[in-house]
């Protein structure tokens, strides 16, 4: 066997089987070739017309042509290919063909990596096919070559994020009406993001990079954007793998680790920008965003299993500290809620310390802290309160109809009912007061510094927590019993 044949043999054994399967299927399908030929034809026509027209009209014909070509490329690589990949995955999930993979030795992570890599290879193929046309715009006037390269690079990264996001949506879209809801929401989000990013890239081409990113910080801004996008890919990857993982596995462990890494990574990025800008205000913004994301996690936590499966139990580590820490990270509703609480406290403390360091501006301590408490604090209380209430309602009345993994739907419905019912009741008895909207988590945005929101949301969370104590403590006890055995 020659060295090359040997190498190919090794490569064949090493390559992810999902990539091989996906590429075989994609290349055989009419969809890929249709998109490629149609869009290449588009590019060809546009470029020909621009070249023919350049002397008679604009001095910035290159910019406009590049913008149009980039729009076409971006439509293919950010919208069409990722959405197509997500839909294909969703169809496989609804047909149940992915289940057969879980009785092989392949892991959920390998499946998601393979799906992502195959879709990204197609995106790269399309970019490669479009590159010669786009480089031709250099011969027209008004094109900044560096801006073009950076734009294409960023476009690729954004497409990668979009692809992973759509795969995540595809993994969620498995059955019934939820499949159509997730597919529809994913499609809508991708289209909205497409137009937003297209507008931003248009600005980059027209005005150069300096105005898009804060002038003087181009490299740092690009680095931050790249790291942020890489982190998004990382979290979507783990979320998708967790969703497709077989029942009973410790599926939340990698997700919580990934979220903790994301939390820590974003904190380090804040520290970097804090040093550059000599301000700690960015920690305040980070605190707000982190707290909102963590609060939303309550909906997911109560949708996790409320009992310890054999597969999770056997993974509980030995050792006093590690076994207790594992409770926060392992699959389980109570563990998830405890992890969110710990992360919320850490976020709050860091934001508090940062606010204390800032002596002037928005981030100065008092203003910042009261806003933090009001907005992020009340949102967490609302999220926790409605999530626990939904878990209780499901357990008591709907355990036969609604699976625990859909508790988040009950939570959203509970929130909607609590938000609308007082207003409807008020309308019937002729009472018209702002306070009737207090059960709505968005009410806080309408009333600045209204402590009644904080009091109500805290009461809601406290009552829900009290009635959920038997449920939560049972999970704690089961875990500790298993840990000691």
């Amino acid at each position, binding site marked *: 066997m020659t060295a090359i044949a040997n190498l190919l043999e090794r490569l064949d054994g090493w390559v992810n089987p999902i990539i091989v*399967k996906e590429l075989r299927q994609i290349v055989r399908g009419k969809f890929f070739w249709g998109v490629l030929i149609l869009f290449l034809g588009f590019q060809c026509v546009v470029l020909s017309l621009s070249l023919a027209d350049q002397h008679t009209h604009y001095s910035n014909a290159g910019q406009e042509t590049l913008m149009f070509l980039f729009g076409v490329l971006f439509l293919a690589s950010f919208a069409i290919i990722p959405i197509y990949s997500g839909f294909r995955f969703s169809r496989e999930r609804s047909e149940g063909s992915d289940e057969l993979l879980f009785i092989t030795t392949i892991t959920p992570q390998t499946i998601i990596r393979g799906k992502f890599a195959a879709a990204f290879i197609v995106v790269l193929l399309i970019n490669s096919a479009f590159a010669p046309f786009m480089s031709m715009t250099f011969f027209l006037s008004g094109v900044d070559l560096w801006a073009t390269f950076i734009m294409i690079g960023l476009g690729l990264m954004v497409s990668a994020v979009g692809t992973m996001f759509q795969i995540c949506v595809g993994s969620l879209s498995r059955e019934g009406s939820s499949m159509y809801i997730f597919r529809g929401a994913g499609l809508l989000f991708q289209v909205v993001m497409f137009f937003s990013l297209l507008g931003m890239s248009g600005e980059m081409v027209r005005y150069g990079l300096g105005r898009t990113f804060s002038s003087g910080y181009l490299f740092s801004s690009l680095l931050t954007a790249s790291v942020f996008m890489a982190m998004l890919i990382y979290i979507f990857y783990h979320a998708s793998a967790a969703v497709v993982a077989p029942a*009973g596995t410790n599926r939340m462990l990698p997700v919580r680790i990934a979220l903790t890494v994301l939390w820590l990574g974003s904190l380090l990025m804040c520290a970097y920008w804090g040093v550059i800008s000599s301000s700690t205000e960015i920690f305040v913004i980070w605190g707000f965003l982190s707290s909102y994301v963590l609060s939303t996690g309550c909906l997911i936590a109560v949708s996790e299993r409320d009992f310890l499966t054999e597969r999770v139990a056997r993974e509980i580590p030995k050792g006093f500290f590690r076994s207790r820490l594992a409770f926060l990270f392992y699959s389980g509703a109570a563990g998830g809620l405890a992890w969110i609480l710990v992360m919320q406290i850490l976020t709050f403390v860091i934001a508090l310390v940062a606010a204390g360091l800032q002596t002037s501006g928005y981030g100065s301590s008092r203003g910042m802290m009261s806003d933090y408490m009001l907005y992020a604090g009340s949102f967490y209380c609302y999220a926790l309160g409605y999530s626990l209430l939904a878990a209780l309602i499901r357990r008591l009345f709907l355990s036969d109809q609604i699976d625990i993994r859909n508790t988040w739907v009950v939570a959203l419905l509970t929130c909607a009912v609590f938000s609308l019912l007082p207003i409807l009741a008020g309308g019937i008895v002729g009472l018209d007061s702002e306070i009737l909207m207090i059960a709505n988590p968005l009410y806080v945005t309408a009333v600045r510094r209204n402590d009644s929101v904080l009091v109500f949301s805290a009461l809601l969370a406290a009552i829900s927590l009290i009635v959920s104590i038997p449920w939560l403590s049972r999970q704690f006890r089961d875990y500790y019993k298993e840990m000691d055995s």
Partner: protein
Amino acid sequence: MILSAKNLCKNFGDTRAVKRLNFQIVGGDITGFVGPNGAGKTTTLRMMASIEEPSSGSIELDGHSIVSHPEMAREKIGFVPDTLPTQDDMTVFEYIDFFARAYGIKPAKRRVLVNDLMEFTNLINIREKLLSALSKGMKQRVSIARALIHDPAFILMDEPAAGLDPRARIELRELLRVLSRQGKGILISSHILSELSEICTSTLIIEQGAMLKFGSIEEITESAVSNRRLIIRPIENLEEFSNFMILLPGVENLVVNGKCVEFDFAGSDEDAYGLLKEIVAAGKKIIEFRFRQQNLESVFMNITRGEVQ
């Protein structure tokens, strides 16, 4: 090698889909898995294939739990679900090759294995055909080939004969016999009981998630009926003979059926011999004296009520 289920239970909300199943499959055995629709067969098979997790109880492979160590099941168990392959845009070769890759089989071994398996399952001539172009029987073969790619010790099959034409069913039966001779344990669910009784060495009958019978076909057919039905054909006047028979001890529910008389007989084989002697001693001429053969179908109809949960 033994694959066993111990007190296996599965609940979906308040519905108890599987209730305390206890059985075992041994290498080389073909076990028929029988029950009305909705009895819990698919759920049981999915649990044994490690796709579903039991609510309680255990599934063990040579004494090791595959519930807590599902990776063990993946290496030793092949599963043929009740659905056919859906990747219509793949060829037969690509489909089987993909699963060989998914099991981590090395390239050199994989190429040989895929070819051998396609020959074994009679797919070699259609290796480049798309799955969309295959008949149901051929797709079922592809599904079986996929389940065999990692050379499992046990094969679980969920309704593999459903919708197949007679030729495909006979070919499937032959394939199962060959696999059994190779020492593989097979658990096969099917509604075609006549075929199961031909190939199976043992049978598991469940209804509403609970086990009704488990054992060899002979054991089940014998234990399922308390009264055996005797058939006697006289060559003389049938009415006179039935009047004579009705007075004999142990004879119940006698009916005339064509040229024979049929009746329930509660006694043992020894008692039957005594009865025969008495008939002959009374000078009655008979040319047929036999018990009605119990088959899986009649046993199934006798012991199940067709109720779903």
